[in-house]
């Protein structure tokens, strides 16, 4: 079984994709080679399928993220982007397939809290912060460290934690909002705060779902800058609709369609792919 996973693409779909990839450029060729060695991946998703009430949300989805990589995932509505996030973070269990973190930990057997503590942070599509807490407290709660009940009951803020929170506040450009209630932040600031909370978790892999939805142009630009800076330290997977933003990210792109990978490569490369054009414009 492991032999199959390690060496062979597991379905015909990926096969054709690779053939086309071979014609289309060296980037995808290199990708095919990397697949043969899963020990280098931080996130390894292979042959994942999941069905909700007869609707196939993910259909034999396979993709791989290298340590330190910044990856954008695009796709039309219903392509399975959020379901994919749900599977990686343990919210949904796949019917079949493997999801491995750092090529050894099987994520399909763990729950959300376990996976979060393993070092996978997730940002939701709708900014989700703790509205009745201050910005500072939001970051404090996300601060890595003991998650146990009694640990939390007797916890005292340490100098090191405070310094980390201050550093993150600067990173996410919310220094002056420190003591503001999170509910009073603008939409864009909430998005940044949520990204800041992910950073406080000290993750190794960040999953970011539509970080610029509803942002102004300048906020979008700032966010792209922020994510690029973050990607220097962490592996980041960004799900996004906004093509301009994906261009700003300047990274490898995976196109999802109907629950599986349609194309993969640089943005200008996948944008030329006739099937990608059809999926995006044809309906």
């Amino acid at each position, binding site marked *: 079984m492991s032999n199959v996973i390690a060496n062979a693409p597991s379905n015909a779909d990926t096969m054709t994709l690779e053939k086309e990839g071979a014609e289309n450029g060296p980037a995808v060729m290199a990708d095919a080679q990397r697949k043969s060695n899963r020990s280098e991946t931080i996130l390894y998703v292979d042959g994942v399928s999941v069905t909700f009430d007869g609707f196939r949300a993910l259909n034999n989805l396979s993709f791989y993220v290298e340590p330190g990589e910044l990856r954008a995932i695009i796709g039309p509505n219903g392509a399975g982007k959020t379901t994919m996030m749900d599977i990686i*973070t343990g*919210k949904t269990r796949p019917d079949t397939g493997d999801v491995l973190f750092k090529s050894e930990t099987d994520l399909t057997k763990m*729950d*959300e*809290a376990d996976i*979060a*503590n393993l070092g996978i*942070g*997730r940002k*939701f599509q709708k900014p*989700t*912060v*703790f*509205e*009745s*807490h*201050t910005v*500072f*407290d939001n970051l*404090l*709660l*996300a601060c890595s460290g003991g*998650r*146990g*009940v009694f640990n*939390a*009951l*007797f*916890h*005292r*803020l340490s100098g090191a934690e*405070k310094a980390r929170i201050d550093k993150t506040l600067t990173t996410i450009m919310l220094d002056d909002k420190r*003591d503001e*209630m999170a509910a009073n932040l603008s939409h864009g600031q909430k998005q940044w705060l949520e990204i800041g*909370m992910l950073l406080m*978790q000290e993750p190794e892999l960040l999953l970011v779902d539509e970080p610029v939805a509803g942002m102004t142009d300048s906020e979008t630009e700032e966010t792209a800058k922020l994510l690029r800076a973050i990607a220097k330290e962490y592996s980041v997977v960004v799900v996004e609709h906004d093509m301009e933003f994906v261009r700003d990210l300047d990274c490898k792109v995976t196109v999802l369609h109907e629950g599986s990978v349609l194309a993969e490569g640089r943005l200008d490369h996948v944008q030329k792919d006739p099937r990608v054009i059809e999926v995006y414009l044809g309906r």
Partner: protein
Amino acid sequence: MTDYSQKYKMTPVVGWLLQDRGGMILLAILIAASILIPICSLLLPQSSAFHVPTWMVSLLGKYLCYALLALSVDLIWGFCGILSLGHGAFFALGGYAMGMYLMRQIGDRGVYGNPDLPDFMVFLNWTELPWYWYGFDMFWFAIVMAMFVPGLLAFVFGFLAFRSRVTGVYLSIITQAMTYALLLAFFRNDMGFGGNNGLTDFKDLLGYSLQSDGTRAGLFVASCVFLGLCYIVARGITQSRLGKVLIAIRDAESRVRFTGYRVEYYKLFVFTVSAVMAGIAGALYVPQVGIINPGEFAPALSIEIVIWVAVGGRGTLYGAVLGAFIVNYAKTFFTGVMPDFWLFFLGGLFIAVTLFLPKGVIGAVPAFGSANGQSFLSGVRKRLNAGGKA
């Protein structure tokens, strides 16, 4: 604005007590009441204008027990969003534990004069004490059980419910079912808890007659002390990092999960602590009212507790105490003056509070309400505007 560097340097207990204006007022009132009421009741002559009759002491003591019960509900509902509509069950279980001790204290002074068996068991032709009545002749054991049994029930119930991620209205419904099931069970004579009549005809507590003024005053003081202690514990919990996690769960449960917290353990902790507090309230209640029967398990009663909290102001702890006093005083008043109107009044009160005082009476006081950004008037304005638009 809170200066955290300052805040965290202080001894935590002193720190969060000083910052808590409502709590300071509550504790001051409790201390004053526990000194003045016994003096006014026991030392002043009946002719004095300041004399407090014993029935009043017991009535206030009863309100204090309700206040503690409301506090326990606010701890889970106001801070963690767990709307328990079955908290009366924990209260009643605590009450039964105390009632069992008081029954054993009757000894051979019962109607049938049996030194071991309570009257109702003799009446049912039982020959020996059921095993679960063992130990209840000891005060300390009854007190431990008054906290342990509700705590255990909450732990097991909560473990199953929270692990299966039962939340919101579904959780409320099964808590109702829980208290209703217990109501039916305790009605049965062969349960061994006195069936329909419950436990009553108590004589004395720790050797002091329950009818004496001194015992009444002592129970009143005990109620003050336990309400104060439980308030401090609840406040400590809500001010800790754990308390912040609880509020976070209330506002965005899945975010808390994806941040790596085991939401179910946090809920289980606070639910169990809350049930123990409810149990203590029940144990203090029973000697002051002199009876415990299955009626305390009635689902409607558990809903009433939630109304107390809503009226007082959810999520403040002292608001719950205030709400319990307001509603229960109104109940005493209405059931005396025009008993038929009480339920109408209660229903109307709940609707009015939900519409116009979303933060309860406490939220209407600017000094307290403004802390969370909404005063009474702005609340009313907002509601009316929202209504106008709809």
